[in-house]
């Protein structure tokens, strides 16, 4: 830790690292959004991983060690994997080359450009105040303490949120029997799949619920 700190605070090194990570993050983000070579979502997802990882590097430069780890674990480890999984599952091929809506493109670039311009002007006009010597350390212990004292209520609420998300995901991905609804709802195609009632899902949800609320 000591050596890492000294490395991060070495002015020249940290400056170099900042520009390295920042450039890498932005380039990868740009390639997620608009890759001139491929319109395959898999490529976008892979560049998103890289952008996330280099952002974790920026977090390290900012002494947010816990968040850097969480960033890699949650984003690179879970979110992106989920994305890739879905892309593979759905066998989504390249984005079809459709007629590009020139007006939309123009409006999009213009509005985004305006927002960036506005931001930089804001930043320029009202300079942000920063403490003379940044000394805060984003280590696990102090974050945990804050999380369980001042922010304990939102923390508990987040557990409810995760429970809801879990229930929702399980419900949405369970397959239903072809049931009475087909008559009463419009646009219904005959349900695909075999009998797998949502009843069987509930044990999972409830155990998951209890683990979540305990965690």
């Amino acid at each position, binding site marked *: 830790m000591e050596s890492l700190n000294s490395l991060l605070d070495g*002015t020249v090194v940290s*400056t170099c690292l*900042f520009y390295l990570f*920042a450039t890498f993050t*932005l380039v990868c*983000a*740009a390639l*997620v*959004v*608009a890759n001139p070579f491929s319109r395959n*979502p898999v490529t*976008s997802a892979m560049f*998103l991983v890289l*952008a*996330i990882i280099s*952002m974790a590097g920026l977090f390290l430069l*900012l002494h947010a060690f816990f*968040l850097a780890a*969480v960033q890699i674990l*949650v*984003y690179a480890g*879970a979110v992106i994997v*989920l*994305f890739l999984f879905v892309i593979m*599952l*759905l066998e*989504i091929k390249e*984005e079809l080359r*459709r007629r590009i809506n020139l007006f939309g*493109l123009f409006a*999009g*670039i213009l*509005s*985004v*450009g305006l*927002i960036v311009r506005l931001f930089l002007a804001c*930043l320029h006009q009202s*300079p*942000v*105040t*920063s*403490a003379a010597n*940044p*000394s*805060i350390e*984003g280590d696990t212990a102090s*974050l945990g303490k*804050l999380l369980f004292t*001042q922010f304990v209520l*939102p923390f508990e609420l987040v557990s409810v*949120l*995760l429970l*809801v*998300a*879990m229930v*929702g*995901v399980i419900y*949405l*991905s369970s397959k239903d029997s072809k049931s009475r609804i087909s008559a009463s709802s419009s646009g219904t195609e005959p349900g*695909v799949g075999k009998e797998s009632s949502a009843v069987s899902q509930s044990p999972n949800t409830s155990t998951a619920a209890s683990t979540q609320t305990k965690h």
Partner: protein
Amino acid sequence: MNVGLEQFLTVSFLLFALGLLGVIMRRNLLVIYMSLELMLNAANLALVSFSRFNNKLDGQVVVFFIITVAAAEVAVGLALIVALFRKRPTAHVEDLATLKL
């Protein structure tokens, strides 16, 4: 030259703008969703850098919450996209045309 808050914030702004551009321009639902993740991450970066340079830890706690909520949102969102894909195999926003005037 030392790296200060301004530099970090500029990176964050640009990241946010890139994400927004992706949401506006791309037509693939999954890529749009990835761009949204970029925008959330831009906010995270801004929060962490403010936290560092203002010597306040609150911001990092907020980032923690954002990451958690974003993970939940991604899970639900992807489940929705999969469910929709089962009904109609497309991931294009322009194909979401059942609900029109």
